[in-house]
């Protein structure tokens, strides 16, 4: 079953004076349970693609179906709900709130979905990524790898269909990068769809399929 489907998708940034093409007629499919990587240099359009897949941005033209839903037709609140329930984000710079504990960070999406049992569920998520001992620590008291694990626990807490990771190992050393990638591989085995943006070939090699983007177009696709 298709989880993500972009059809003839174009994104043009209109800055008033000049129009910049972010994505140029891209079509892309990703099945449920797949683990895909998107590679490209900076400015290639891979982040734009990620933002649109992540329902943070809307395409100028073309369609985007996520889990069978036409996302373009949804309003901002509905998009927020999809981000909360169906998507989990992992960022290069972790993006944890600095003044609350790891556990409170992980529980944050539950606040917006109105779930109960936040304590137990956030602890369970922290355990799932192997960092339960750090539950009471502030982000500033943790290493990069630990922070990224907390961020992954946060992405997992609402049992999302898709995890979107934007350069998740960009700020990590090689050993930690590989342990994070093993974690993603584990999650992939549990059936979660994972899309990873990266510019490192050995990170991309963890995924089943890699798409190469340049100047807003998909120029190559490699299956492993």
């Amino acid at each position, binding site marked *: 079953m298709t989880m993500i489907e972009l059809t003839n998708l174009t994104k043009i940034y209109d800055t008033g004076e000049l129009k910049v093409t972010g994505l140029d007629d891209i079509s892309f499919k990703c099945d449920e349970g797949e683990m895909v990587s998107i590679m490209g240099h900076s400015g290639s359009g891979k982040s734009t693609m990620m933002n649109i897949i992540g329902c943070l941005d809307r395409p100028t033209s073309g369609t985007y179906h996520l889990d069978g839903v036409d996302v373009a037709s949804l309003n901002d609140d509905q998009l*927020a709900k999809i981000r909360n329930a169906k998507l989990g984000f992992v960022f290069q710079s972790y993006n944890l709130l600095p003044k609350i504990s790891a556990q409170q960070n992980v529980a*944050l999406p539950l606040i*917006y979905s109105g779930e109960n049992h936040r304590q137990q569920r956030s602890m369970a998520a922290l355990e799932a990524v192997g960092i339960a001992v750090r539950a009471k620590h502030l982000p500033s008291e943790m290493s990069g790898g630990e922070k990224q694990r907390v961020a992954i626990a946060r992405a997992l807490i609402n049992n999302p269909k898709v995890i979107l990771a934007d350069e998740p190992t960009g700020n990590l050393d090689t050993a930690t990068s590989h342990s994070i990638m093993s974690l993603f591989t584990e999650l992939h085995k549990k059936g979660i769809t994972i899309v990873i943006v990266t510019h490192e070939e050995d990170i991309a090699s963890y995924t089943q399929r890699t798409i190469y983007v340049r100047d807003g177009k998909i120029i190559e696709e490699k299956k492993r």
Partner: protein
Amino acid sequence: MSIWESLRTAWQSIFANKLRSSLTMLGIVIGVCAVVLLVALGQGFQTSMTKTFNDMGASALYISSAPSKTVVGGIRPLTNEDVTALQDKNLVPAVSVVSPTRTNRGTASYGNNNASESLMGIMPVITKIRNYKMDQGRFLTDQDVTNRANVVVLGWQAEIDLFGAQAPGTTSPIGTYIRISGMKFQVVGTCQKFGGFAGDSYILMPLTTMQSKITGGDVVQQIGILASKPDQVDTAIAQVTAVLRARHFIRTVAGAADDFSITDMRETLNSMEATLAAFSLFMGAVGAISLIVGGIGIMNIMLVSVTERTREIGIRKAIGARRRDILIQFLIEAAALSLTGGLIGLGLAVGVAHAMGQITLGQTQVTPEISYSIVFIALGVSIGTGLLSGTYPAFRAGGLDPIESLRHE
């Protein structure tokens, strides 16, 4: 996101920036403290004024022969006979108390002390109009009036002028003799302090004594009357006017003016209350300005906070916060900030009001009164100020683009 959750988030954020939060609150603290104190003072002042006024006989009507209009054929002064006529229940049924007075400035002396006092010839019935409270001794009696006795009751200030400020109970002036116009008068009583604008430099003696031994003649200066019922004041005025016009041979034709005037103290009281209301309004306005300044402070800090926390807003939006969630979070934060400031300001005002206890404005003793309504208004206003000044920053925060916000450093 539930309100409870928003409150918790707001509290976390306020607590995380203690110094900044307290500085922001300061404006509201001062504003609320000022409003509460000023209104409390205003109310205390009003209470004090009303009390003084009632002690002085604000419910009475005062007849005097000082007409404001030119009277053809001369003015007939008010006399004892006029008083007798007004005491006639058949002629003026709407009047219950008739209290004539004759006042004269005079010098009283005791030992080496000389004092210029207001000498008042009165009838004992005056106590139904004016609230004389005895300090020592007794008030004047009908017996004193009949006997034209040389007895006096001293006002609080007059007692001090003549006998000096003594510790209470040392030497009582009761029974001693003072001199007025070369005659000896025995002090039979002293009064407690009126305070305020009522004045305490008076010496009371029987009206008969005053007329026969000091001023001579049968003229009275002023007649205080009380209507038998509060709703009969206008009837009383009409009846008194009719009787006095007849007695003073003023023909009941248009254009013939009264040679006396009747002052209704209610009018004075009303205008006094209007003045006080304006005074309170002015005080409130002063407080309101400080609240506005405090509100602007909150708006300022919230705007800074939105900019500073752009990334946080981006993160929250990425994980599913709606525009509304962010908006409410910032609104509640602003309201919580100013409510906390309001509570502190209120506490401060209560403390200061207690510390002040009683202050003297001019001659009037004023005790600040903090009523429940001020408390609720102050807290309501501080929440309102927070919400109002939080609105723009909150809309800014809610409207931020998640992608831009996530990129914000």
